[in-house]
């Protein structure tokens, strides 16, 4: 159906000489593209640290802002609390949507804990974190405006990962998006019976758990890299990924004694890493469920972890 002459031309077009350098140039561009990606992702953590530790002095302004600005949407949950059901509700929600900037911050609020003081401490911390994030958002927008504008948004909220008779686990996320995005997570696991917030070290007899968990995670990372044919990448030694791209000190060696963790519905320990902490950004937030037999000997008891 195509004209014969056009067919001729097509052949000519397709058989046109391709320069010998094409192969090399294509491969070089692919390599460079891969490196750029790695580099961009690795740059991000500095940004994250900046805003997590940002000025708490502006917190007062946040409170005033929350209560007076018409742009603020306040969500008050009037759901009645029956008996001693522990609930996590949205205490406040701040929403702003501009063409270039956006904020959506949901502040968690725990209700129904026996220990009111614990409840209050948790809630105060959640509010303080929300304030911090919001004042950082305002400051960043102002800075960007001074420099002639840009894009920036924050998205923060929470999720209840476990809420049974004994334990309550709350996951809170903070995602900030500029040119690229990054997410940090915070977890709280609360023992409702003993009315305490669990920390990682208190689950174990001594510090031996750090090594046991770390070497298990390293093994898993290497396994996942190999099984996924390097589609998954972690910054770890010994996985056959060329390490020359990575600085030595960026490789994963060990978890922190107070590494992010939570206890899942099966009462297993889950270790979490923020985006960029142990892997390139496209891997997102990384979590490893630790089989209980790995840490069995280190546990104080099987009370929480089974």
């Amino acid at each position, binding site marked *: 159906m195509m004209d014969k002459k*056009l067919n001729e031309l097509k052949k000519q*077009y397709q058989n046109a000489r391709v320069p010998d350098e094409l192969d090399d140039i*294509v491969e070089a561009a692919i390599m460079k593209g891969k490196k*750029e990606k790695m580099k961009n992702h690795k740059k991000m953590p500095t940004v994250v640290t900046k805003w997590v530790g940002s000025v708490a002095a502006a917190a007062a302004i946040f409170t005033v802002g929350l209560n007076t600005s018409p742009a603020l949407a306040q969500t008050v949950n009037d759901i009645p609390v029956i008996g001693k059901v522990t609930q996590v509700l949205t205490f406040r929600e701040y929403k702003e949507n501009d063409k270039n900037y956006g904020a959506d911050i949901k502040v968690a609020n725990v209700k129904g804990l026996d220990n009111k003081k614990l409840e209050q401490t948790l809630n105060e911390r959640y509010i303080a974190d929300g304030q911090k994030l919001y004042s950082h958002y305002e400051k960043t927008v102002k800075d960007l405006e001074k420099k002639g504008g840009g894009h920036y948004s924050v998205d923060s909220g929470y999720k209840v990962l476990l809420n049974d008779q004994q334990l309550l686990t709350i996951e809170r*996320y903070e*995602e900030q998006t500029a040119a690229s995005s990054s*997410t940090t*997570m915070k977890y709280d696991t609360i023992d409702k019976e003993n009315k305490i917030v669990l920390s990682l070290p208190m689950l174990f007899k001594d510090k031996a758990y750090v090594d046991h968990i770390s070497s298990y995670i390293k093994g898993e990372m290497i396994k996942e890299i190999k099984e996924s044919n390097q*589609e998954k990448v972690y910054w770890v030694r010994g996985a056959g990924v060329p390490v020359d791209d990575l600085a030595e000190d960026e490789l994963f060696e060990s978890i922190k004694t107070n590494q992010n963790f939570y206890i899942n519905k099966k009462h297993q320990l889950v270790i979490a890493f923020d985006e960029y902490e142990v892997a390139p950004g496209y891997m997102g937030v990384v979590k490893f469920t630790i089989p209980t037999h790995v840490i069995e000997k280190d546990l104080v008891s099987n009370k929480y972890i089974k």
Partner: protein
Amino acid sequence: MKRKKQLFYDDDLVEWIRQNKKQLYWLAYSYVKNEQDALDIVQDSIQKAMQNYQQLLNKEKLKSWFYRIVINTSLDFLKKFRRVQVTDDETLLYLSSSSEDQYENLDLAGALERLPTKYREIVILRYFEDLKIEEVAYILNENSNTIKTRLYKALKILRIDMEQEEG
């Protein structure tokens, strides 16, 4: 967490680039008409594509999407270095070869070369790259009817009977 991160697989893209590098080169060449510049454009386009691949949600559109990058990069380049198009060695060599049945084709090839870009690119994408009208429209950021009209006009200029050209 609320927004699930889409896992991003570089390998599909890299594989596709390796398989289609010639087409990418020809496409760039059809705009810039110069070997070195076409190579530069291929290189730039690959890097742009790798940086932005995550944003391409429908991976089936990869070909059109990538062509769009190549074409935009080429057009940017031409805008920046608006240069007199000199006939390069390849064409000279071709012009000086004098077999008889190539003569007729040369006429057509020359006619295609002389077509304004907005017509030539459509002929290349539609016929040489076998893309659908809708895909051509997507790549060139025009609507399908505009593409059809231009294609008709292009073929008319090339004096090609197009009774059988479908929509």
